[in-house]
C-alpha cells in the first residue's frame, strides 16, 4: 500500500504503471472487450484491408480481420513473452550474479566470463541466431530471449554484490557470525532488489522491442498469431495504401515499451535516494 503511494508521487512512474496496468487489463479482458473476438482465427475474405470505421476501429487486415481486436489479443502475447522471458532471465541471472559476486574466485570468474561471452554479441543478433536455428515459434522466441538476456541481470547483481560485500554492514553481519546464506539472502539480496526491479522494468521494454523485431523478421510466432511485430511485417505488402495496418501495432508497441521505461525511470528515482529530486519547481 505504502509502495503504491510512493509510486504515485513520481509522475513518470504513475504514468508508466498506468499504461502497464491498462495493458494487463486489456490482455485479461480481451475476449470481452474486443468487438470481434473471433477475428483472431476467423476471416472475412470479402472484407479485406478496409480503412478504419465504426465497425473496425483500426481497420481490417489482409484476412479481413478486425485489427483492433487482434491488437487487444496481441497484448496477451506481448505480456507472455515479456514476463516469461524476463522472468527466466531474472531467475537464471540473479543467483548467478549473487554467487559469483559473493564468492568470487574461480567460480565467480567462470560465471562472469560466461556472461561476458553472451554479452559480447548484441542481444538481438544472438536471439536471431537462436530463434533461427530452433525455428520460428513463440516458445523459441521466449527461449532465445531468456538465453540472451540473463547476463544483464547476472552482471548487475554481480556488481551490486561486489560493492555490497565491501560495505560495512555486510562485514558487520559476517563479524556477528551470520552464515553465508543468511548474509546473501537477508542482507545482500534485498539491497540489490531496487536495482533488479529497475533493470527488470526497463528490461521488459527492451525485451518487447526485441521480440517485436524478431516477429518482424519472421522469426516469431506463426500466423495467424496476432503478434504486433508480425502484424507490422505483414502490413508492409499493403503500404502505403493500407496506412492503418502498421500504425496501430506500432503505436501499441511504442506505448507499452514507453510504459515500462517510464516505470523503470520513475522507480529509479524513487528507489535511489541519491537522484531523488528535492525542492519544488
Amino acid at each position: 500500500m505504502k509502495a503504491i503511494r510512493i509510486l504515485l508521487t513520481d509522475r513518470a512512474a504513475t504514468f508508466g504503471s498506468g499504461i502497464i496496468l491498462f495493458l494487463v487489463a486489456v490482455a485479461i479482458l480481451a475476449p470481452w472487450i474486443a468487438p470481434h473476438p473471433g477475428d483472431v482465427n476467423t476471416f472475412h475474405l470479402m472484407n479485406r484491408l478496409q480503412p478504419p470505421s465504426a465497425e473496425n476501429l483500426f481497420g481490417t487486415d489482409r484476412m479481413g480481420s478486425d485489427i483492433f481486436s487482434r491488437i487487444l489479443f496481441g497484448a496477451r502475447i506481448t505480456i507472455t513473452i515479456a514476463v516469461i522471458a524476463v522472468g527466466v532471465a531474472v531467475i537464471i541471472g540473479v543467483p548467478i550474479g549473487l554467487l559469483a559476486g559473493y564468492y568470487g574466485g574461480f567460480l565467480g570468474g567462470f560465471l562472469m566470463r560466461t556472461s561476458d561471452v553472451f554479452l559480447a554479441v548484441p542481444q538481438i543478433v544472438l536471439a536471431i541466431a537462436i530463434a533461427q536455428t530452433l525455428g520460428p515459434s513463440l516458445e523459441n522466441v521466449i527461449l532465445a530471449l531468456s538465453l540472451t538476456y540473463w547476463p544483464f541481470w547476472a552482471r548487475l547483481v554481480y556488481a551490486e554484490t561486489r560493492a555490497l560485500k565491501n560495505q560495512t554492514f555486510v562485514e558487520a553481519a559476517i563479524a556477528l557470525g551470520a552464515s553465508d546464506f543468511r548474509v546473501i539472502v537477508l542482507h545482500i539480496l534485498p539491497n540489490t532488489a531496487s536495482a533488479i526491479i529497475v533493470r527488470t522494468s526497463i528490461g521488459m521494454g527492451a525485451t518487447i522491442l526485441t521480440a517485436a523485431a524478431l516477429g518482424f523478421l519472421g522469426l516469431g510466432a506463426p500466423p495467424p498469431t496476432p503478434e504486433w511485430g508480425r502484424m507490422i511485417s505483414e502490413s508492409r505488402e499493403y503500404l502505403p495504401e493500407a496506412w492503418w495496418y502498421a500504425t496501430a501495432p506500432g503505436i501499441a508497441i511504442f506505448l507499452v515499451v514507453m510504459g515500462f521505461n517510464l516505470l523503470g525511470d520513475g522507480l529509479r528515482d524513487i528507489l535511489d535516494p541519491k537522484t531523488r529530486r528535492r525542492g519544488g519547481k
Partner: protein
Amino acid sequence: MRRLEIILSRFVWFIPTLFGLLLVVFLIANVVPTDPARIIAGENATEAQLAILRAQLGLDEPIYVQFFIYVRDLLSGDMGRSLYTQREISDDLLRRLPATMELTLVSITLAILIGVPFGVISAIRANTWVDQTLRVISVSGLAVASFWFAIELQLFFSTRLGWMPLNGRIAGFGPERITGFLLIDSVITGDWASLRSAMWHLILPTLTLALPAAATLLRFTRAGVLEVINSNYVLYETAMGFPRALVVWKYVLRNALISTVTQIGLIFGTLFAGAVVVEAVFDWPGLGTYAVQSILQSDTKAILGFSILVGVVFIGINLLVDIVHTFIDPRMVK
C-alpha cells in the same frame, strides 16, 4: 607503462571471450538437424547428388571435430562457404561491412552530436520545461520500434512527399569500389554526384538508427552531468569564479563523458544490431540485409559468420573504448 599493461590485459580477455563466443554460436548453429547438403542441392536434389555433396562438406565427422576444423579455418580467415549461395562467407561479410560501418558510424556521430549537447542542456536546466521536454523526447526515442519508425519515415518522406530516396545506398552502383565507404570513395574519385546521392540516401536510415542512440546518450550524459555538477570540484570551480561555460563544457563534460564513452561502446553494438532491421527496411546492402537473407534461407553458416563478425567488431569496439578510457580518465592508470 601502466596503460600498456591495462590495454594488454584487456586484450588477453579478448581471446577467451572470443573462443567462448565461437563455441556458443557454433553450438547454437548446430542444434537443429537441418541437412546442409539438402539446402545446397535445393528442392530438386536427388540422393546421388546429396551423397556427392555430403562427402564434399565433411559432414560425417563428429561435431567436436567439425568445431575444431571450423576454428582452425577461422584462424586463417576462412569462415567457410554459404550453404545457400556457395560464396565465401568472409568475402561476403567483408564486402558488406563498409556499408554497415558507414551507416553506423554516421549514425553514432549524429547521435553524439545530438545526444551529448542536449544531455548537458537537460542537466543544467534540470527539472525545467526544457528538461521535461527533452526527457519526453528521449523516453519516446527509446520506446519506438526502429523497424516501425523506419517504415513510417519511408512512407512519409519517400512515398508521400517524394523528398527522399526510397532505399539503397546510392542511385546506381556508385563510384568505383576502393574502400567500400561510398562517402570516401566518391571523394577520392571526385564523383560529386555520387557523394550527394550517397548522403541523400543516408538521411532516413541514419535518422532511424540515431534516434534511440541519441536518446540513450542524452540520458547518460544528463545523469553524468547531474552527478558531476553536484560534485565538490564543480562547487569549487564555481566558487572560484570560473566562467560558467568553461565549467560546464570543459570541466563538467570531461568528467561526464567518462561514463558516456563506455556507453558509446555499448551503443555501437546496439546500432549494429539495429542495422539488422533498419537495413532490411531500406534495402541497405550491408551486413543486416545479409543476416536477414541468411535467416530466411536458414543459412546457418552465414549466420554463424555474421554473429562472429559482429561479436568481434563489438568486442573490438569495447576494447577501443577501454583504451580511450585510460586516456580520458587518468585515474585508470594509477
